[in-house]
């Protein structure tokens, strides 16, 4: 007699916990044969609103964690993901990838986490400056995180794309609310489990699954979100986001690429995009 599996329930990831959507709604993900893989939560604007409140609460202490600490946490995420490599490969296959492609995607995602872990205590040295002003002042410019960032993750490459937008934002001290790929959301919630096991404080990363069209306007207009990252090419959506973002002069970051594999898809400039520059003056005369 064969043994019956326990099917996994996919919920949202908010504040270091896994709640269901407050709306109680769902949408289905089927495999290529049309059979049900999972019922995903159809997140509501209230879920998004709650996630922003939690992300805001967590942002100050995350930003104040030392660069070393953040780097070690990101490295830990890579360690845990490496340990679950097979699980993620199988999930990507279930979502329609070929094994070879899936394996490459997971391995690149792991390496990318290590990549950004390594930037945590270095990007300041790259982008900051001591400025030789003409008065008797010590003047320096350094980077600070923008704060809370809403992210619409890439639709394709549901793991690698997700990691590629989350890692640079959080290593810089931001907290994020992410809307996962709508058609391939499974890996995003499994990735949330990895985050949860990696000493990432609750609220630093929050992941929602749901309908892009329904949620994008809220993600772009929320007055307590400091920046929005959108992955996609649709010109109308880009325009809509830009217009709504102007409500609170939100910073907009658009990634139109569809392939996150190659080396150009990781760089310290991805970190820099969700940073502000602060310049400080202090007299030096006695």
């Amino acid at each position, binding site marked *: 007699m064969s043994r019956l599996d326990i099917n996994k329930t996919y919920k949202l990831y908010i504040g270091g916990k896994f709640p269901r959507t407050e709306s109680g709604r769902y949408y289905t993900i089927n495999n290529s044969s049309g059979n049900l893989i999972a019922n995903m939560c159809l997140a509501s604007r209230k879920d998004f609103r709650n996630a922003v409140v939690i992300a805001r609460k967590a942002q100050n202490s995350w930003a104040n964690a030392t660069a070393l600490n953040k780097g070690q946490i990101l490295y830990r995420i890579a360690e845990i993901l490496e340990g679950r490599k097979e699980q993620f490969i199988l999930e990507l296959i279930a979502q329609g990838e070929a094994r070879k492609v899936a394996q490459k995607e997971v391995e690149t995602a792991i*390496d990318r986490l290590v990549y950004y872990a390594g*930037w945590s205590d270095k990007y300041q040295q790259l982008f900051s400056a001591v400025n030789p002003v003409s008065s008797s002042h010590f003047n320096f410019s350094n980077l600070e995180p923008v704060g809370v960032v809403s992210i619409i993750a890439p639709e394709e490459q549901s793991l690698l794309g997700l990691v590629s937008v989350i890692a640079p934002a959080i290593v810089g001290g931001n907290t994020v609310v992410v809307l996962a790929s709508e058609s391939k959301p499974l890996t995003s919630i499994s990735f949330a489990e990895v985050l949860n096991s990696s000493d990432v404080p609750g609220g630093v990363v929050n992941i929602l699954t749901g309908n892009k069209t329904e949620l994008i306007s809220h993600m772009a207009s929320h007055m307590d979100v400091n920046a929005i990252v959108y992955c996609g090419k649709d010109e109308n959506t880009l325009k809509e986001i830009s217009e709504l973002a102007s409500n609170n002069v939100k910073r907009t970051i658009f990634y139109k690429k569809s392939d996150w594999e190659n080396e150009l898809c990781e760089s*310290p400039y991805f970190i820099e995009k969700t940073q502000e520059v602060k310049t400080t003056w202090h007299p030096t005369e006695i």
Partner: protein
Amino acid sequence: MAKNNNNNIFKASWTYDEAPESTDHIQIKKQYELYIDGEFTKPVKNNYFDTINPSNGKKIATIAEASSEDVDKAVKAARKAFKGWAALTGKERGKYIFRIARLIQERAREFAVIESLDGGKPIRESRDIDIPLAANHFFYYAGWADKLEYAFPNRNPKPLGVVGQIIPWNFPLLMAAWKLAPALATGNTVVLKPAETTSLTALKLAEIIHESGIPKGVVNIVTGAGETGASIVNNPDVNKIAFTGSTGVGKYIQKATAGTNKKLTLELGGKGANIIFEDAAIDQAVEGIVNAIFFNQGHVCCAGSRLFVQESVADLVIEKLKRRMETLIVGDPLDKNTDIGAINSKKQLQTIENYIKIGINEGGEIYQPECKFPTQGNWCAPTLFLNVSQSHRIVQEEIFGPVLAVQTFRTIDEVIEKANNTPYGLSAGVWTEKGSKIFHLTQKLNAGVVWGNTFNKFDATSPFGGYKESGFGREGGLHGLKPYVKFE
């Protein structure tokens, strides 16, 4: 009401029982061989020397002595491994170095205990400072391995080749980390010689390096004394020498490499000025003095060994300092309550005691709190010399022990001039609550590291190194990559 200036009024009455760190979980072999080309191999001439526990004079283990033939083998192995190592992607190189960092973290306590046994520093310092900093140093540079194109604007950095590295006995594992991490991250292969009185943690590091899977020959560790070091310096197939140690030996190495194509960085001695202004947070400044000169028994190249205290607060500072010194516990390095451990070797103790004699003969006013030393081992009480001047030998020469020379000063310009009045230029400290004064002083002091309202702080991201005869080149931070690359 009657005033009472008796220091003993605040005498601590509660004495702490022994709190020894457990040693039964650590593993030390009876005999250690050289680590060359990925394996532990016997020295060609079959010579060995003992490594001694400086707190009781007992032998801990036997260490192989590398002759010039062994050094030759090591350099050949490093050369052979260089091509493959440099050809790896930065990402893959970085992963090996991340592994080393993690392995150190996993074995942190064992490293800390062995460091204290072999070198004499308090377990509290090796546990809380040396070992974490060492692991973090590997962690930091591992992250640079695949990012070098961002470190040098408009330049294409390439590794140098085979690097020879010679490190001192005051921070054995940490100095090994400071040397190995940037060299490996940039694609070089290494022949490293630890100091002869503190070889053990470098050899335990060799075991970790072995377990990390790093290709053989990339890291070679050859133990020995001055002659082994000279063999490395003089080996014709070494592309670069990195040395941390005394200024005397540094000058010898600079001379020996003259006319060769060998690149060189030196991190040498110092006689750091620690300056306390009247508007300092006095209580914290006093603690800063203690950290500056009594941390690690004063065996610190960047020690704040010249105290300059503004005359208007001199009496107050000295009184508070003496009281603070009374609470310092000199004792068994493995006792968790020990503040000041054993002097690293009999030789070093003699050097320090000699300087103390010189100081007394020169007319310095000596102060040492009463200390109860264990019966065996090398011990020195924390020592002050008051009322000395720039002309005193104990103010000019590096003692490398827990001996502080104290001078007063009156004006800002005066103290800047005196602080800079030395052939050394490694470190300085400034204590004042006035921001502009800090920036003014940091701009004017000729030292590679200037500490404002703190002292002896180190971080993997923070470049460290000297001006003038304290050496050249920087370790740590972005600047620490430069000594290990060349630009086509």
